[in-house]
Structure formats: structure tokens, C-alpha cells
């Protein structure tokens, strides 16, 4: 797969998405605040939020893959989507709370 050359402030040799991820400043996620979320008077831990993000991510990926006909290429659907969901959740953790 060949990525299109983009007029994005990319550095040579580094994929554009890595640059854009690293360009997201730590201050940019400061609005997230404390790693604990109040829901009707109780504080829910950050990892629970990441679990939800992972679950939603898995469902979204499944929908996208179905729409793009990628789903047909896959085998071991349960393992694949579980792993992809975990990845999304873990990366969500790193981005939101990992700084």
C-alpha cells in the first residue's frame, strides 16, 4: 500500500500519522483532567473508561471492516476483534492518561 504524499508538516521517513499523534500536545488532552470520572455521584476509574473505549472501538472496526469488505479476509474473528478492541483501549489509555 502506498501512502499519498501529503502537504502536511511531515518529516522525511516518519509516517504522517505518527507525526500528527506526536504533534498532539500534552496540553491538548489536559481537558481530560483527573483519571476518574464522576457519574451520578460516583467516581469511575480511568481504566473502566478505556474498557468502554475498547469495546466501542471493536464494534466500530467491525462495522468499518464490514463496509469495506475487509471482514471477509479475516479469520479467527473473535481473537482478532478482541485484540483490536484491546489495542484501541490501551492506545486510548496511553493517549488520554499516559502523559
Amino acid at each position, binding site marked *: 500500500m502506498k501512502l499519498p504524499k501529503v502537504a502536511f508538516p511531515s518529516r522525511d521517513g516518519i509516517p504522517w500519522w505518527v507525526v500528527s499523534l506526536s504533534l498532539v500536545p500534552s496540553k491538548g488532552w*489536559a481537558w481530560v483532567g483527573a483519571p*476518574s470520572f464522576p457519574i451520578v455521584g460516583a467516581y469511575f476509574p480511568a481504566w473502566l473508561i478505556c474498557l468502554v473505549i475498547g469495546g466501542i472501538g471493536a464494534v466500530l472496526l467491525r462495522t468499518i471492516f464490514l463496509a469495506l469488505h475487509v471482514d471477509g479476509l479475516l*479469520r479467527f474473528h473473535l*481473537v*482478532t476483534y478482541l485484540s483490536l478492541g484491546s489495542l484501541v483501549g490501551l492506545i486510548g489509555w496511553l493517549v488520554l492518561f*499516559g502523559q
Partner: protein
Amino acid sequence: MKTERIKGSFPVGSVLALSALVGALLVALYVDHESGLHPDSDSSIIYTESVHVAALVGGRLQHLAVEPNQPVHKGDLLYQIDPEPYEIALHRAEASQAQAEADLNDARRALAVRMAEAATSERRHHQAEDEKDLAWRTVTRLKPLAEQHYVSWQVYDQAVTRFNSAVDALAEAQHAEQASQVAVGDVKHAEAILKEAVAAVEHARYELRQTRVTANLDGFVTSLGVREGEVLAANQVLFTLVSKDQWYALAPIREINLAPIHKGDCATVYSMIDRSHPLRGVVESVGWGVLTDYMKENDRGAPYVERQMDWVHIAQRFPVRIRIEHAAENQHLLRLGATANVEILHGAACHA
């Protein structure tokens, strides 16, 4: 939907599944490693020192100068206990002191009289010695005259008797002098009583001062629930003063995560009063002991061990004390006992 799988071609599905699995595992390990380096706790509390405010003396609460939750400054009057009984006690002590002073003056005068008496006795002693010497000289002078019958033996015997009387009189005068010397004594007793009276006055003044209770730190009044008129025992706590000089977060950190924590480490503290506002903190110390229910000390001193065995043990947590910097500017976020999130060596406040 038509799905085709070409036999013998590259197994895309299996490779994707495997790479997703391996990727997820690797990222999970990385996240676990990172979390181990940056211990955090979402069950911390905001903490500060507090002082139980009590008067050292008892009495009726005459004037209460503060309201619940009011900020106070060091030295401010908090409340006043009815000073009248303590004023009366002070007057009584002062009267006792005046009496003791008068007694001391009396004792000094009596001492002067006794010293004069002792001086008189001394002079009488010298006088008696002189008279004894004179009597002896008379005896020695008369003896040869009596032997040659120039004077009668009667005269000589009278002289001897006068000499013996003079010796007795001298012994008497010596004893009288010794007695008067011993009787002089001193005024230490009266001085000691005066010292005692002075100390009693100081104590009464101290107790009178203690009827005014002032704030010994800058802080806030909490748990105040009485009004003027309440009768207080000595040392009875009326309310608690929460210090605002220095605030802390107490973060319970699992023992397995204590290793990277050192004094002076940066920490991000979120008070849940405003969870979007990171506060910068500095690790001060890690608690050296917590009470555990696994082994309890009892009266006999022998440990009580529960007769059961768990397969899975919950990690013990130790409170890490984190000093919050710039507490004065963020006073609205700091209340004793507020829930806090703490990220050590980590978080928004540690990047700035």
C-alpha cells in the same frame, strides 16, 4: 455477500489475527510497565493538620468571636471564658503575696533584734572574762599577804570565793552567748513563703490569660456547634481549627509500586472539587506503618492470627504524603478529606 478464499494463497486472515494479538499483548505489557513507573491512586484524600481548640481552664463561655467555617488568622481571639473567677483568684493571690512580704519584713526586724541580743551576749562574755581575770589577780595578790598575816585569811577566802563565782559567771555568759548566736537564725522561711506567694500570683495571672483563647495558626473553624453560655470544663475541646498553611494529599499506593517513589518526586494532584484543575505536588514521605487486620496485637501481647488462609491476597497500601505547592492560590480546591486523584512522577502538573 460473496467471500472467496483462494487456496494456497497468502493466509491474510491468520496473519492479521496473529499480529493483532501480538500487538495487543505488546502494548498491554508496555502499558503495564509504564503504569509501574508512574504509580497513581484514585482514592487519595486532601489532608492538612488540625488543632483541637480548648481552653486550659474551665468556665462559662462568655464571648464567642468566631462563626462556623470562618477563616481566622494566627493571634485572632477565638473565644473568651468568663474571667471573673480567675480575676478573684488573682486578687487573692496578690493579697497572699502582700501578706508574705509583710511577714518577711517582720522576720527581718526580728532578726535584727536577735542579732543585737547576740552582740550584747558577746560583750557580757568578755566582761565576765575580765572579771574572772581580776578575781584571779586578787587571789594571787592576797595569798602571800595572807601567809605573812598582813591580811586575814577571811579576806583571802572571800577573794577565792569571788574568783570561783567569776568562773561560774563566765561559763554562764559563754552558754548565753552560744544560745543567742544559735537563736539569730535567718529569714529563709519567710523568703520561701514569699516566693511561693509570688509563684501563686504568676499562676493566677497565667490562668486568667488562659480564659482568652486565640488562634495559634492560620486556618478555618470547623465543627463548631455551641453558643455563648455553654459551660466548659478545663481542656474541653470546643471546635477544631483546620490549618491552611500547608496542604497535603495522602495517596494510598500499593506496596508493589512504592519502589520508584522518592522524596522530592513530582506529583499531579487533582482535587475532585474541580477535576479539571491539576495541582502540582511534591512527594514528602512514605508512611512507615499501617494497621493490618491479618495479625492483631491483643492484651496478652501475643499476635492473633486468623485461622484461615487466602489464596489471593490484596496488596497492602501505604499512604504517600504529598505536599501541594501553591496551596494558597488554590484554596477553593482544598478541603480536609476531599477525594483526590494522585499521579506520581506523571500527569499534567509535572510537564509544566
